[in-house]
């Protein structure tokens, strides 16, 4: 099964438009977890359809808002509660760490789940063959997909274990990089080990860079950005190992020409976070 074929099969559009049944949707979601290309395509399709819909925008009468506001019971506390703002947990880093560990475990469970899922799918497919009405091409695709999954799974588990060990290391700090106006919805996590100086970044949450462009990670040390390498966005778990970094007060990601730049283009900064 070629991933490009899957992407161009029309299933992504149907998924985004909510036209698939639960099983089919589940399959697309599994594929999105396993293949960043699928995830990116879903994202791009959503944005494209959103633009399309926005082309037909019409401002509704103000009466609708009035009616809604009078119909809904809002929680008053949250309205007034802003002054006595909720305290942010001090142990921010470790809660992030737990989150990332939990996320990694989830990925491990999901990929096992996916294997079981595809194996079951394969069984179903096989019995359908006996019944003999399904299309041959589709069957071949599913079988190939299953084979691929099994071949890759042991390598994947080994890589996951390494990443998990890195994340569990008490010297590893997780730095959340928050979306800037350019890209307000992204939250990228950087994991940096002070002792081993290794850096990992989760690449899942960034948009697909335009043709000829690539995202680049920077460590900011005493006000000076240090190149931490370009993001490939192709890593199968969305966690990519970056250049080693000696010291940093912040991390940021900018969009640069393919291959990276010696200095960051600040106007193209997508996410940023301080330690």
């Amino acid at each position: 099964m070629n991933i490009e074929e899957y992407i161009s099969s029309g299933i992504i559009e149907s998924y985004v438009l909510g036209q698939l049944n639960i099983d089919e949707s589940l399959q697309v979601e599994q594929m999105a977890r396993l293949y960043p290309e699928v995830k990116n395509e879903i994202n791009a399709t959503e944005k494209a359809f959103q633009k399309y819909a926005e082309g037909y925008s019409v401002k509704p009468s103000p009466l609708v808002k009035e009616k809604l506001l009078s119909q809904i019971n809002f929680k008053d506390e949250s309205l007034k509660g802003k002054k006595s703002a909720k305290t942010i947990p001090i142990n921010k880093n470790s809660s992030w760490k737990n989150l990332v560990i939990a996320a990694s475990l989830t990925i491990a469970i999901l990929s096992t789940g996916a294997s079981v899922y595809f194996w079951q799918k394969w069984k179903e497919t096989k019995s359908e063959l006996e019944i003999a009405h399904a299309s041959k091409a589709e069957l071949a695709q599913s079988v190939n997909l299953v084979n691929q999954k099994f071949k890759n799974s042991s390598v994947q588990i080994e890589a996951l274990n390494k990443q998990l060990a890195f994340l569990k290391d008490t010297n590893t700090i997780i730095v959340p990089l928050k979306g800037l106006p350019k890209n307000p919805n992204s939250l990228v996590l950087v994991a940096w080990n002070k002792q081993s100086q290794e850096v990992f970044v989760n690449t899942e949450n960034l948009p697909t860079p335009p043709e000829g462009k690539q995202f680049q990670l920077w460590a900011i040390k005493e006000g000076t950005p240090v190149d931490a390498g370009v993001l490939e966005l192709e890593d199968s778990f969305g966690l990519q190992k970056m250049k080693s970094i000696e010291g940093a007060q912040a991390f940021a990601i900018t969009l640069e020409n393919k291959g990276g730049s010696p200095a960051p283009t600040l106007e193209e900064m997508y996410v940023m976070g301080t330690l």
Partner: protein
Amino acid sequence: MTTITQNKVIATLKTISENELVSLLLKKDKRSFEYLYENYSSAIYGVILRIIRSEDMAEEVLQDCFLKIWNKIEDFDPEKGKLFTWMINIARNMAIDKTRSRDFKNKSKSDDIDFVVDNENGNLSEKFKIEHIGVKDMLKELNPDQHQLLDLMYFKGYSQSEISEEFDIPLGTVKTRVRAAMNILKKFF
């Protein structure tokens, strides 16, 4: 330098992220509802209106739709996609359901005339003109076939195989055309 950059960044941050918005919606915060309404109601209403083509009924559906979004926000899973996608799918389903109701069939008989969304040249009446110039350019790039395909899928809820059957076009051709239309839409950001 770090702090300067960051302060600058915060100063220009006019919008809150989708994640923040959703978490405020989950807390049933009034401001989050107003923010949601201000930012999304025109796009959602536009879609509903294009399906229903009667302002009164479209406003009714818009209202129900926002109530549903508000009450069902717990069902939104950001892992699966954007908030806009989730909301617009709710809106589309509600609007299409409405067009199948008896209420709609009776009403549309009586007031066809006062509502002209677009004539054959694709011009929109003054009242409903497209607000975003960039989007207008985008829609112009689509050829009539592509435009019709997107319209069927987006506003009429047709699946690609339903289009193939209904219009007697091979499914492969439908898929190729959809792909081409999507590539045009994607070019515009």
